[in-house]
């Protein structure tokens, strides 16, 4: 009696596993371990930087349905001979990615005397495999912390690296908000650096005080797939 029960439960578990496996393979494919290269060795990649699925696994000489994925940017078919042709298709999706760095996100001026002063405040470097929109928001004159009606006139300049200060085109701070940059990258120019210059006019009428402006720069990656969760860098279907 005990052996019969054991056999019955074992059969039930195996049947469930078989059905689940068949369904998984046919509908979603089988997710395989992805390996990432670090120097001269391979490590298991569990960071979800990439996923790899195999669909429609077959055995023997029976032609199978094609391996498939939802999106394809490249594909390849292989065959052995005419009599036993097994169509194989490898497909992959390369998602738009961005790597950026900015040398500083806070500028501190210490001013002893009235005058017009300028500095190269930050360098923004962007690498991507697609186009990127650089959007400036919230830029304005530096405002007196005690009297918001009083401010220091502020200008910015966005220039290529190594541009001398004499060639900087100064943009009124508030006008910078409508001076977005659309950067297009290609294999021949995969990165761009922009120097952010800052000019302030401290006038004789500016009282001794702290002056500040908070702003932000938004980088928007273009042509993103629907299965990248917005703003979270996870492989999630957003449909």
């Amino acid at each position, binding site marked *: 009696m005990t052996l019969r029960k054991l056999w019955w439960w074992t059969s039930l578990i195996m049947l469930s596993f078989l059905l689940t496996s068949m369904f998984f393979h046919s509908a979603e494919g089988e997710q395989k371990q992805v390996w990432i290269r670090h120097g001269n060795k391979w490590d298991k990649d569990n960071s979800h930087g990439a996923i790899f699925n195999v669909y429609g696994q077959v055995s023997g000489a029976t032609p199978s349905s094609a391996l498939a994925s939802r999106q394809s940017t490249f594909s390849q078919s292989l065959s052995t001979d005419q009599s036993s042709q097994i169509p194989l298709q490898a497909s992959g999706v390369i*998602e738009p*990615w*961005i*790597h*950026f*760095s*900015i*040398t*500083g*996100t*806070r*500028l*501190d*001026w*210490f*001013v*002893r*005397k*009235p*005058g*017009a*002063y*300028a*500095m*190269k*405040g*930050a360098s923004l470097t962007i690498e991507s495999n697609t186009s990127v929109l650089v959007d400036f928001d*919230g*830029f304005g004159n*530096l405002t007196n*912390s*005690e009297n918001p009606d009083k401010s220091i006139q*502020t200008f910015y300049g966005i220039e290529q690296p190594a541009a001398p*200060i004499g060639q900087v085109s100064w943009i009124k701070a508030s006008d910078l908000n409508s001076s977005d940059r659309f950067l297009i990258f290609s294999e021949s120019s995969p990165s761009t650096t922009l120097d952010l210059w*800052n000019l302030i006019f*401290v006038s*004789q*009428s*500016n*009282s*001794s*005080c*702290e*002056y*500040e*402006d*908070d*702003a*932000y*720069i*938004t*980088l*928007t*990656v273009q042509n*993103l797939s629907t299965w*990248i969760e*917005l*703003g*979270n*860098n996870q492989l999630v279907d957003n449909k």
Partner: protein
Amino acid sequence: MKKLLILLAGAILLLPAFAFAGNPSPWPPIGTEVEVFQLEGDAWRSLGIGDPGAFARAFTSLPAVGDSNRQFWRIDFQNHASVAQWVRWSITGTRWDWFVRKPGCYAADCIGFTIASNYDVDILYAGFDDLLYQGTGGVTLTIPVWYATWNLGTPPPPASDEWIPAALMNGKDILIPDSEQLHQGLSAKLWNKICVQQSNSACEYEDDAVVVIELKRIKPWIDPETGYFRPLQ
């Protein structure tokens, strides 16, 4: 001939007055110092890096990096300026010399004083007194002195309350509040009146006094002794 010598030494000192407003940048600042350029006419002049006497210095901090497939990256950006209090003043003379031949009351427009600043300024007086006999013996050992702040070209009327006895000048604390007029510069004349009596012997008479200009807002990154930047350490 009677000859009087009046000496007024106007020593101007800048005293530390720590008063903070807003949220000042930390000193030493975080981040990296960058080269600052100053516009002179149509040309830029480099102020270099690390000069405690520079008119302005700048630092950049809080770098950021991102590496992902995210669609949006928001980079918060902050620009902050800490403006120190400055003062520019001039005085037409710090020594006054009377030469008196006969007893009598005499008045003169002794000095002109201008001051400009970008915050409250305190004017303090110390050591003012009647002129003191400098020799030995003598009959009446002092010459009474009065002062008046008066911007007209003729002195205040002799009996006017504008005339303040010298000794009452001491401890006077004249606060000039921050104003647009102060930023552009205020001017004042200080009149001086002496009454030489018949009992004043022929001799030299003198008084030494001090006027102190106090800036009311010294930023923590300013060395109050020199007015320059504090060291970064």
